[in-house]
């Protein structure tokens, strides 16, 4: 492990740890409004300042990280799992299965899924607790976001299915199941991992975009998505650069994941 990789692992552990134990670390509840301190600059009292309602930005970032860091990877896992199943089946079995899988992927890519999400949100009972609403949102994002990854996995699976070593294995009488588990899946792992890591920031940003339409994490619950909404106003960011903290954390976390993933890919 290089120094960079060690540092990346350390940062990720620290961020995950802080977000998991935010209840103890955060100096304030995430929803406490101290209305005399709205838009306060960073200080000993508010490390990252206070937001427009006087809520401590640092506490909200910690709580928001917990939601985003747990749920965005969960959504990515759902998406990549579905992509592996559909893309893998299409790529390995070929023929009509391949056409069916790709038709399904094309259909999902062309569907106006945003409207589907809006419909689902509109159909949810209004007294659904915010946490349940968030879970539904990320589950939907995960189950709708597999199509792009499925195409990539399908291409890789197709290549593997027709590779020399696979043909040789089949010629030696290896069963389809063993071929899949021993020869194909280990070789698909890198592609699936890449799709997984790529999907995490996409789901975080998708949640941020949905927040603008009312489908994201609703007030007062924080998430990286709704914290990033503060960046809409360029001049405010110029005057209050600490608003960039959620974006910086997102970049840092995704960067660290990427560094560790690269190592994993190289070593595999």
């Amino acid at each position, binding site marked *: 492990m290089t120094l960079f990789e060690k540092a990346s692992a350390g940062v990720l552990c620290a961020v995950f740890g802080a977000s998991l134990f935010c209840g103890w670390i955060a100096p304030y509840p995430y*929803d406490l*409004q101290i*209305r005399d301190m*709205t838009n306060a600059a960073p200080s000993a009292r508010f490390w990252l300042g206070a937001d*427009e*309602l*006087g809520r401590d930005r640092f506490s909200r970032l910690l709580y928001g990280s917990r939601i985003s860091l747990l749920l965005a990877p969960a959504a990515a896992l759902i998406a990549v799992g579905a992509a592996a199943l559909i893309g893998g089946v299409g790529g390995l079995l070929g023929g009509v299965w391949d056409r069916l899988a790709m038709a399904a992927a094309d259909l999902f890519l062309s569907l106006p899924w945003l409207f589907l999400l*809006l419909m689902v*949100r*509109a159909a949810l009972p*209004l*007294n*659904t*607790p*915010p946490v349940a609403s968030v879970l539904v949102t990320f589950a939907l994002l995960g189950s709708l976001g597999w199509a792009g990854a499925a195409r990539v996995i399908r291409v890789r699976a197709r290549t593997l299915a027709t590779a020399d070593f696979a043909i040789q294995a089949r010629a030696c009488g290896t069963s389809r199941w063993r071929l899949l588990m021993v020869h194909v899946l280990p070789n698909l792992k890198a592609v699936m991992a890449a799709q997984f890591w790529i999907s995490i920031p996409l789901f975080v940003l998708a949640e941020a975009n949905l927040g*603008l*339409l*009312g*489908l994201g994490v*609703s*007030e*007062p619950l924080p998430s990286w998505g709704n914290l990033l*909404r503060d960046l*809409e*106003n*360029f*001049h*405010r960011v110029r*005057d209050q650069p600490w608003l960039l903290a959620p974006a910086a954390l997102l970049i840092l976390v995704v960067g660290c994941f990427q560094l560790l993933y690269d190592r994993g890919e190289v070593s595999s």
Partner: protein
Amino acid sequence: MKRRAFLLASLLVQAGAQEKNELRFCLRADPKTFDPLKVEEESSGIVRYLTGGVLIRVHRQTQNPIAELATSWKRSADGRRISFALRRGVHYSDGTPFDAEDVAYTFRMLADPNLRSPAADSFRFAQGAPRVEVKGRYEADVVFPAPAPGAERLFDSAPILSSRSPKRELAVLGPYELAEHKPGVHVLLRRNPHYWKKDEAGVRLPYVDTIRMEIQQNRELEMMRFRRGQLSLISSLDAEMYEQLAAQMPSGVVDGGPSLDAEFLWFNQIPGAGIDEYKKSWFRSARFRQAVSRAISRDDLCRVVYKGRAQPAAGPVSPSNRFWYNAALKPHSYDPPAALRLLAEEGFQLRDGVLRDRTGNATEFSLITNAGNRARERMGAMIQQDLAKIGIKMNLVTLDFRSLIERITRGFQYEACLLGLVNTDLDPNSQMNVWLSSGSSHQWNPNQKRPETAWEADIDRLMDAQATALDPNKRKTSFDRVQQIVFEQAPFIYLVHKNALGAVSPALRNARASALWPQILWNAERFSLGPEVSSRGR
């Protein structure tokens, strides 16, 4: 060398723009129509305001009706007829002369049952549309089917069309005429060479040659362009942008005071709505609604959400509506103990931080509002914290606008809603649909066959009384009482009247803010760019 040439070219372009004496500002969306009688949305409304000539204009500062194409008017004793004396020697932008036939033609068009627009609807009364009797070339009577108190204000949104011009609705009587429309890019207006109005010194209006309205939805880009001097004004700003701009260009911002708009919340009191019966009983209790009203800090909403650029609201009428505002009503002050006392009278008890009704149900409800509106989302979060202090749990739900409208107008599957009312009319007659219990916009319990409560019956009676009385003071007395009942019963819990905020370039002269739509643009014909008003057109 190339850079110098580029700079020179830029300077020449800028100088050219100044030479052109052009006013520039942004529209949020393309105008959907240039037919002044079909206007439904703001962009088309602005074009109509700048190009249309009307018989009577409501002055945006004095709020009094003033003569425009009519030099005078007289109302008959029964209130059904308004006799106009028309201005002579006026021509449309293409040179076609204006006379009483044009007024008759315009009202025939307005009476078309197939024409659906706010302007047309406002002239349609239960007994039918008004008709015009031409009494002479420059005399016309508008005859209403029933007494129409306050009808003068309706003429403000009814530009007079030409009955003879081959250019049809593009021949206009206002200060500007349409020169060019590039969809998605801009609308260009040029001065109407035949505009009749002159200033006090005899200079023909308008002063500015052309108005370029660029289509720009992104408010950040609009602000950036304004800061760079590429725009002359921003007609409507939110409080956050206003504060940012004020910090950098204190002389560039204008605050027209409280607008006519109001932000409010209401509880669903519809008997057939699919919500729990025990919740319906809370929502139908005036004490419960009053308690919620007293538990909300309006001062904080104004200070935090609107940066002090708003005023706590007591009722539907803003203090900027000088005649109809009921000054006797004061907004509820933030008083959680008083709220708890009211709730206790209704059988609620605060136990372990949770407010429970007399049957032990925890007090919890959801409040819906439209997604993407940061001010409302913030207000919702603040109300949530305020109500938590008296043990009420409120879930804030943001929905896309279409879903929200569906819920509050058709499905009625909601418990409480936070929205705003955009008001462009000073007269309460425009709110009949809101206050009559049979009205479809009587949001807390619309379309009632007969009033379900005594106080709603009182409001119905008073609204009918003010709609038929010809004496303005009698109308005011009736509507004051309506405001009083609404204040006491709190079917709508009014929160704030936000200020009309805008921005004006230092190069733009004669711009004065108004709380009334179209805010800064109300006297665009008198805008000038640069130090001296051109003597052209004398």
